[in-house]
């Protein structure tokens, strides 16, 4: 099981959230991301990436969609799922 960050995933790829690193923004951002639904063992999918290094559009769980910068996405550690969400 190799750990990747959310920003490493390519568009359409599904992974499972492992943990949230505290990163440059500390615990505040980690708590916020958790309240927004990015919790361990949740499926997470990259829906699209904006051009020119813009933000990424993700879905976590089945009903929550978020956008965040690639910088923030680097704090989210994920691993590949055994059973893909959308085969």
């Amino acid at each position: 099981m190799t750990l990747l960050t959310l920003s490493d995933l390519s568009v359409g790829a599904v992974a499972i959230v492992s943990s949230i690193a505290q990163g440059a923004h500390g615990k505040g951002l980690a708590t916020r991301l958790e309240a927004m639904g990015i919790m361990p063992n949740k499926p997470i999918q990259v829906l699209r990436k904006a051009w020119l290094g813009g933000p990424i559009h993700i879905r976590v769980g089945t009903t929550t969609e978020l956008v965040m910068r690639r910088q923030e996405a680097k704090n989210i550690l994920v691993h590949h799922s055994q059973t893909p969400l959308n085969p």
Partner: protein
Amino acid sequence: MICHPEPSPLNTETSLKRAVLLGMPNTGKSTFFNRITGASAFVGNWPGITVSFMQAEVTINGECAEFVDLPGIYDLNGFSDDEKVVRQFLEQFPVSLAVIILNASQLDRQIRLPLQLKALGIPSVVVLNMVDEAERFGIKIDPEKLTQRLEMPVALVSAKYGRGYFRTYQLISQALGSAVTPAVGLQTIGLQTVSPPEISAQTLEDMLAGAVSMPSQAAITVTQRLDAVLLHPLWGLPLFFLGMFGVFWLIWQVGLPSQDLMDQLTGWLQTTIIEPAVSPFPLLFQSFILNGLWGGLATIASFVPLLVLFFMAMAVLEDSGYLSRSAYLMDAFMARLGLDGRSFVMQMMGFGCNVPALMGTRVMRSQALRWLTMLVIPFSLCSARLQVFVFILAAVFPASQGAIALFSLYVLSFVAAICTAFLFQGIFKNDEPFVLELPPYRLPTLRQVLLRGWGEVRIFLTRASSFIALGCISIWLITSLPIGATGLDTIGGRIGEFLQPIMHPIGIDPYLTLALIFGIVAKEVVLGSLAVIYALNPTAISQHLSENLTWVQAYSFCIFCLLYTPCLTTFVTTLNESKSWKFASFTLVFSFGFAWACSFVFYQGTSFFQF
């Protein structure tokens, strides 16, 4: 329904039961609040708390209770100012009942909030809103099971369409009936601070297991299909700008004709009621009433239909979920200016009115990002300035070119903001994270859109009645005194002439200079003041302007008006929000210098090539 229709002075040691509405952003909390409080809501301020809340007093179960709409929060332990404010409120003020609004389709993560409140021992009712949307996602909820597990009443509702509202109302009414009226906030009963325990993912799962079934796979929804087009990396932005142009076209084609109707109405009122009524009085008094008071008010009235239309369009953009998507679309660009997508959303809000946009910058945590955003927001072409431009451009341009000229001012408004952000991003350095929720696309209801249009106009008219009437009366005074003087012999004319060395190089004559001075009080006053300065009704002013102004002068005037010193209310808000005289004064001086420079370049440049 309503026990006190008038805002009553706040009594923090109230004998009333107090219910607070709590919930995450995008859960329809305000829609629910509107439903339960009707039209009685007002803006309330609380001692020691920097943010004001919407609140209302409602008779529920034959008893008067106070409802307070607290700001949306993600987590009671959260770091944002809003989250701090909610904690502070719960610590300081007694609360009988918390009504927790959750988005039913995101229960898997939002269930955290009721668990936190439970840990604090605050009696709560859980309202699962947007059940219609949850059904479309294929989510199944067993409210009885949830009620047992949470040990709180749980109701399912669609606040937008009213489904399940009666049952929810009953539950709240029962809970409020059995709730006691607490005398003190949490702080005084031993809980020094609101710090609910961390709630693990496992706890959340256990809470929901068997009571809520989330779909195992994301369905292909309308939202996904729309996003594939609207958030397309290549087509997304052009579609966004096309949409914006569509809104302006609507205002031009529908808003303007509706103004003519209002002009006819106020003109008719003047000739049939007001003129006969003041005729027995001395001429100076007649002039004061007709040209000072009525002239200004009639001009303002003629813009009410335009404002309703504008804010209805804004409501559609916001409620549909497209506004947050525009933040995504613009972020790659905004990040390069040291701003983020949210700055862009606030900038968009600024097109309605700069004041709420400036207040909205509170969502940003980094002071640098907030200040930079607050520096550029006043360049947003707000609805008050729109009135001025629509009027002046319509006077000097043929109809088809008018729309293009107006659009070009919107472009200039963006360009000014971009240049400013670019220039100052090194001074206000931003390291704020950017994470936003994208709600599914939602069909705005007519009710919501009309409520928004009406609500904004009500706020505008409240401001207008004091600011604009005062502005119009003072301008009548300085343009009518000394008694017997006309035009440039009046006090105002002399001020205009005195400023000519500065204003002449940008093509602005003493009359218009005077109107601009009063525009500092509020941009709406610019037009009202023209009515008074020329002592003409709006139609006649339009003719007067088209005969006496070249299009170059008119456009230069518009540029200056767009960029110079924001209105008094904007300035006061900037000061309040930044809590820095130095920063607020800087925004004043900078915008004035920038406005003059832009008008100068345009006026001198165009004059050079034309003549």
